[in-house]
C-alpha cells in the first residue's frame, strides 16, 4: 500500500469510530442546544431546531434510548410540563464527539 493511501485511511478512521447517534445533523443540533441550556420543553426544542413534531419525537426517542437525554416531568406554575435534559452520559458523549471532530479537522 502506498504511504499516501495509508495516511488517507488513518485520517478517515477517527470518523468511523465517531458516535453515530450524535453524528446525525438533527440529533447533533438537539444535543448542542441541550448541552448549553439546563433544560427545555418539547415546544422550545421544536422552535429552536426547526424540526417538525414527528421528526423531533423520533430523534428524541433515539437519544433517550441510548441514555443521552432524559424526560423530566415538572410543574411550572400549576401546569405540568415535560422537560428534556441532557444526562451526564450525554454530556460526556457530546464532549467526546466534539473532541473527535476537532481532532479530525485538525489532521486533514
Amino acid at each position, binding site marked *: 500500500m502506498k504511504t499516501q493511501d495509508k495516511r488517507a485511511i488513518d485520517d478517515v478512521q477517527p470518523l468511523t469510530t465517531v458516535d453515530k447517534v450524535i453524528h446525525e445533523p438533527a440529533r447533533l443540533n438537539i444535543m*448542542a*442546544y441541550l*448541552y*448549553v*441550556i*439546563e*433544560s*427545555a*420543553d*418539547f*415546544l*422550545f*426544542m*421544536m*422552535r*429552536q431546531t426547526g424540526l417538525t*413534531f414527528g421528526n423531533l*419525537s423520533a430523534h428524541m426517542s433515539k437519544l433517550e434510548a441510548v441514555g443521552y437525554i432524559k424526560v423530566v*416531568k415538572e410543574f*411550572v*406554575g400549576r*401546569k*405540568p*410540563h*415535560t*422537560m428534556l435534559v441532557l444526562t451526564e452520559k450525554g454530556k460526556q458523549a457530546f464532549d467526546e464527539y*466534539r473532541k473527535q471532530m*476537532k481532532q479530525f479537522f485538525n489532521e486533514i
Partner: protein
Amino acid sequence: MTEKMNLKEIEKKAYRFTFQDGIYDIMFGVLLVSFALAPILREVIGLGYILFLVIPAPLILTLGKRYITVPRIGIVKFGLNRQVAHKKLVIISVILVIITLILLMMTITKTFPGTLGTMLDGYAVPLIIGISTIIGMGVFAYIKDFPHLWIYGLIIGLSIPVAEVLYKTIGTPLNGIIAFGVPGIVILIYGSLILFRFLHKYPLPKEEMSNENSG
C-alpha cells in the same frame, strides 16, 4: 476555541430567542405612558397614582410571558450563569425602583437636602435622576443581555430632565405628556409590531404538541 465560540453563540441565540415577543418593549412603553399620565392621575386619585406607576409594567411582563410567549415558544431553563445573573438583576431592579421612587417623591414634594434643589437652576435633581436611570438601566441591559434596554434606559433617563425643562415653559401636565408620552407611545407601537410579528410567526401549537408538553 471554535467549538466553544459556536456553543456560546447557540446559547446566546436560544437566550435572545425569548425576547422576540415584544413584551419587554411594550412593558417599557406602558411605563413611559404611565409617567406621562402621572400628573393627571395624581389630580384625580391622589397618592394612589403611584400604583399606576408600579403595577402595570410588571403585570404586563408576567402575564404576557405566561399567556402569550410560553404557549407559543415553550419553556427553557438556562444554566447557572444566567440564573445567578437573573437573581442579581432582581436585587438591582428592586434597589433602583426604590431609589427612583424616593427621588421622584422628593422632586414632587420639593424636599431636597441642602441646596441640591436649587443647583443648576433647579435642574440638578432631574439630571441626577436621569443619569442614575441611564446607568441603572445600562447595568440592567448588560446583565440581562438585551440590547434594546440600553436605548430604553437612555430614553427614560433623558425624558426626566426634558420634562423639567418643558415644565418651566409649558407647565404640567403637558411637559410629562411630551417628555414621556411621545417616546412611550413610539416604543409601545414598536413593541406591538414585534408582538404582532411574533404571533404571526409562532401560532399556538396543535393539540398533539400541547398534550406532549403537558405530559
